[in-house]
């Protein structure tokens, strides 16, 4: 029997770019689990390993420079330390950047939990000419130090042992002495705070005293809430702060930070010798090219293009290879469903078909996501992402966005063809909450791959001569509108969101490890698949119901059944009673044959090679030899002889007619069902309003049905404009052209613009919910594009007709308006931002 191991809770802290995740992976090996901190989007990694009779339970805290309450990451890190009370803290320290890293060390030490310092990247420090006396450093800091080289796996055993030792010893690390002026306030404040015994059990007193003196709002809240003499303490602190400021002409928080840095500088001076200085590091040399005014832009454009090409274009090509696998899976799943009927299919077939189709369609994009996630991980790990922000910040700031917004927008489809899902996920890298939300909300306005078929269809029909230039306008108007919208969002509903100052570290470049990239890529893929698949299944069920119910009346059903019988009867009559196949095809025989023929056609479609063809034919021959004779139109071999079977040929010929009649009947039924469905009724009810946009009820239904997946739009239009959406698209174009003689290019333009602004698909909405942590934002992301779409469609159709403009002229007009709009709001923001910043600062000051 296995003994229950005692658990040790360990928190892994560290500043950004200290190699924290590498060390975390090193310590835990593969045993880790990624989730989000409850209710928010910051990743929470946990992992375990065993040492002696203990099971160590590690939690990776977000990388932070400090432990203030100003940023989300810092609040998460300190809340974890205060509330979960780990038994040991491991602080990953970048050996090449000791001074700034010590700043966090001092703050962690104040919490009083046993502390282990991991001096990471010890090899890089050495190669840069730093000699670090770790023993002395350990003495001066008052905590154990372990040098490691995370990316080479060195120091794992020592680190594990030291953590264990720190746990056993339960020794609190030494606390920083802030000097006479500050200590004369901190000491009595500490005593004051410890008066309430319950309170001092809940919070580390020294830490809290420092935070109160720093005017930390969360610390004040904690005192007010949990201490019995909270008000008294707060007014005491307030008084002391005032006295300090008037005496030293400096806010205590500044003195505190200053003191920490002074101490760090002193310790570094004692323990680190720089035996030689490198005139120019490799990073410096790379940055001379990458951040240069001219070559920098070229590198940037090249990188963006490469990312887009590798993930979206090449990834899409890979889906050509993975699709047969998924199609095979789909076929296999469909086989287990009840068989189809002549006109009406059983519900247990029709509904799962939709659900399976929906899930498979999402899975189809997985190769794109894998490439994309890997590329993003590489960009993060190398350090290029920070350079990208550096180069582009100025442009995006005009629109309330951030230098890092460029990647999500590109992935969403800056010209034609992207995908909003990875776009939304890539927003995670943006540190500024306001810009992150603004980016996330406008990414779906980009042109995702699924919007394209409808563009192509309508452009081919109504803009045949100016297709290229129209595609350019449509492809680029979305980014123009997105930037303007982002600006408006950040001025209005996002006004109160946290906006982080753009003080961004540009870490040295380093080569990412394959393991690290793969791990991150697969983690994100895992989260994506888990979240998406379940919900897509539910939504597809719902969509099926909306589009198929309440369904046809009894009379109409009877009508269709009698039509079906008529077709069957006339078929039997035509092949004649004396035909040897008559018996075979009577009753269920016909539908069985239909299934057989469909399978046969599916199996042989596109098969060129003679050998494979023979194998397939052999299979079908064995499955049902009689049916085989018919599908071969009566030409087959028997015992080495070639046989021509006239009866089978006749059956085949007649059957083809039946097949077409059945298809038409089913299409008619489907059209009637959709028209009478909940969704159809909405589409028809909306027609009086949407007339102004140039949409008739068919377009309404098509656009609503596109909500589940935009690819549906073309399919639904196909169904509603007579007969099935067939293999060849030109047929649909022809039908549309003929049927809708009344359609003008302005109609088409209105539909195209509405589609360009179309609300995100369900998986994207889900991702927005996950990444923003709020259902509200998800709903907002659903509805504002509809309003936007209505405005643009109205402009295109009603205004276009009033002005008597042609489609192209109207497009150019709208395009110009969009640019004016974008530039206009860009300017508003600039003036207002400075004012806003000031008021925000005033608020904090007060």
């Amino acid at each position, binding site marked *: 029997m296995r003994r229950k191991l005692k658990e040790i809770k360990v928190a892994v802290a560290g500043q950004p770019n200290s190699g924290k995740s590498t060390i975390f992976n090193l310590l835990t090996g593969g045993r880790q689990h990624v989730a989000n901190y409850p209710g928010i989007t910051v990743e929470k990694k946990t992992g375990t390993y065993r040492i002696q009779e203990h099971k160590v339970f590690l939690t990776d805290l977000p990388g932070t*420079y*400090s432990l*203030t309450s*100003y940023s989300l990451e810092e609040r998460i890190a300190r809340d974890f330390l205060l509330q979960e009370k780990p038994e040991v803290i491991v602080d990953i320290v970048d050996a*090449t*950047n000791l*001074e*700034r890293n010590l*700043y966090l060390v001092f703050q962690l030490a104040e919490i009083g939990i046993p502390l282990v310092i991991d001096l990471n990247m010890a090899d890089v420090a050495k190669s840069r000419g730093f000699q670090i006396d770790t023993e002395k450093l350990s003495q001066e800091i008052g905590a154990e130090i372990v040098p490691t080289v995370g990316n080479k796996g060195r120091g794992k055993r020592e680190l594990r042992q030291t953590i264990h030792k720190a746990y056993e010893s339960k020794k609190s690390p030494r606390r920083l002495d802030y000097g006479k002026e500050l200590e004369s306030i901190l000491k009595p404040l500490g005593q004051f705070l410890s008066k309430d015994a319950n309170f001092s059990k809940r919070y580390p007193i020294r830490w809290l005293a420092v935070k109160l003196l720093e005017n930390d709002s969360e610390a004040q809240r904690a005192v007010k809430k949990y201490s019995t003499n909270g008000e008294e303490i707060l007014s005491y602190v307030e008084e002391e702060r005032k006295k300090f400021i008037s005496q030293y002409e400096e*806010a205590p*928080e*500044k003195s505190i*930070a*200053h003191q920490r*840095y*002074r101490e760090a500088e002193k310790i570094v001076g004692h323990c680190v010798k720089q035996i030689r200085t490198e005139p120019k590091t490799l*990073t410096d040399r790379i*940055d001379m090219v990458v*951040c*240069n*005014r*001219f070559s*920098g*832009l070229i590198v940037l454009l090249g990188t963006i293009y490469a990312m887009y090409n590798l993930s979206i274009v090449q990834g899409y090509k890979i889906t050509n290879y993975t699709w047969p696998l998924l199609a095979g899976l789909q076929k296999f799943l469909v086989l287990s469903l009840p068989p189809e009927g002549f006109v009406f299919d059983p519900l247990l077939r029709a509904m799962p078909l939709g659900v399976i189709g929906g899930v498979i369609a999402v899975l189809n994009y997985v190769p794109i996501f894998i490439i994309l996630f890997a590329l993003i991980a590489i960009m993060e790990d190398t350090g290029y992402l*920070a350079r990208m*922000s*550096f*180069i582009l*910040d*100025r*442009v995006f*700031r005009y629109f309330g966005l951030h230098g890092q917004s460029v990647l999500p927008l590109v992935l969403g489809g800056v010209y034609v063809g992207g995908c909003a899902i990875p776009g939304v996920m890539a927003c995670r890298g943006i540190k500024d909450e306001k810009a992150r939300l603004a980016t996330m909300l406008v990414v779906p306005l980009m042109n995702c791959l699924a919007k394209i078929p409808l563009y192509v269809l309508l452009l081919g029909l109504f803009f045949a001569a100016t297709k290229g230039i129209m595609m350019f306008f449509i492809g680029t108007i979305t980014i123009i509108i997105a930037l303007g919208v982002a600006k408006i969002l950040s001025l209005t509903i996002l006004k109160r969101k*946290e906006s*982080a*100052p*753009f*003080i*961004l*570290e*540009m*870490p040295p470049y380093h080569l990412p490890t394959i393991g690290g990239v793969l791990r991150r890529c697969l983690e994100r893929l895992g989260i994506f698949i888990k979240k998406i698949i379940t919900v897509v299944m539910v939504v597809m069920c719902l969509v099926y119901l909306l589009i198929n119910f309440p369904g046809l009346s009894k009379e109409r059903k009877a009508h269709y059944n009698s039509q079906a019988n008529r077709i069957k009867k006339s078929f039997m009559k035509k092949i004649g009673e004396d035909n040897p196949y008559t018996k075979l095809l009577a009753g269920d025989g016909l539908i069985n044959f239909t299934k057989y023929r469909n399978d046969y056609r599916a199996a042989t479609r596109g098969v060129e090679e003679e050998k494979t063809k023979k194998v397939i034919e052999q299979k079908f021959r064995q499955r049902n030899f009689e049916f085989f004779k018919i599908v071969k139109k009566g030409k087959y071999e028997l015992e080495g002889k070639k046989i021509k079977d006239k009866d089978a040929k006749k059956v085949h010929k007649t059957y083809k007619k039946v097949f077409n009649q059945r298809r038409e009947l089913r299409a008619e039924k489907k059209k009637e069902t959709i028209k009478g469905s909940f969704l159809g009724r909405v589409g028809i009810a909306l027609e009086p309003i949407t007339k102004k946009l140039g949409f008739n009820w068919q377009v309404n239904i098509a656009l609503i049905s596109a909500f589940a997946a935009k690819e549906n739009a073309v399919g639904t239009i196909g169904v509603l404009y007579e007969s099935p959406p067939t293999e060849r698209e030109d047929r649909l174009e022809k039908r549309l052209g003929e049927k809708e003689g009344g359609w003008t290019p302005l109609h088409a333009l209105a539909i195209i613009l509405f589609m360009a602004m179309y609300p995100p698909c369900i998986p994207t909405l889900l991702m927005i919910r996950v990444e923003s942590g709020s259902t509200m934002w998800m709903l907002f992301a659903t509805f504002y594009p509809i309003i936007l779409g209505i405005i643009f469609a109205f402009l295109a159709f009603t205004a276009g007709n009033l002005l008597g403009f042609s489609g192209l002229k109207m497009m150019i007009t709208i395009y110009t308006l969009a640019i004016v709009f974008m530039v206009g709001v860009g300017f508003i923001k600039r003036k207002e931002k*400075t004012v806003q*910043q000031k008021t*925000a*600062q005033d608020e*904090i*000051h007060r």
Partner: protein
Amino acid sequence: MTLDELKPGQKCHIAKVNAEGVTGQRLLDMGFVPGAKIHIIRNAPLVDPVEILLKGYHISIRHSESKEIEIVVP
């Protein structure tokens, strides 16, 4: 004199940080404390932000933020 007035290549040290609130605290946390030495490395292609070297590491900072930092050029 404030940090945003310097050109790439110039060196200085910090006299005082005027920013308060989020920006002020962030600057302090990143090492913008009186006496710290700064080396201006380069401007971004569109001039703003600016890359500087502080305490051995590189930071990108906007003009609007570096305006809050009073400096002394030796």
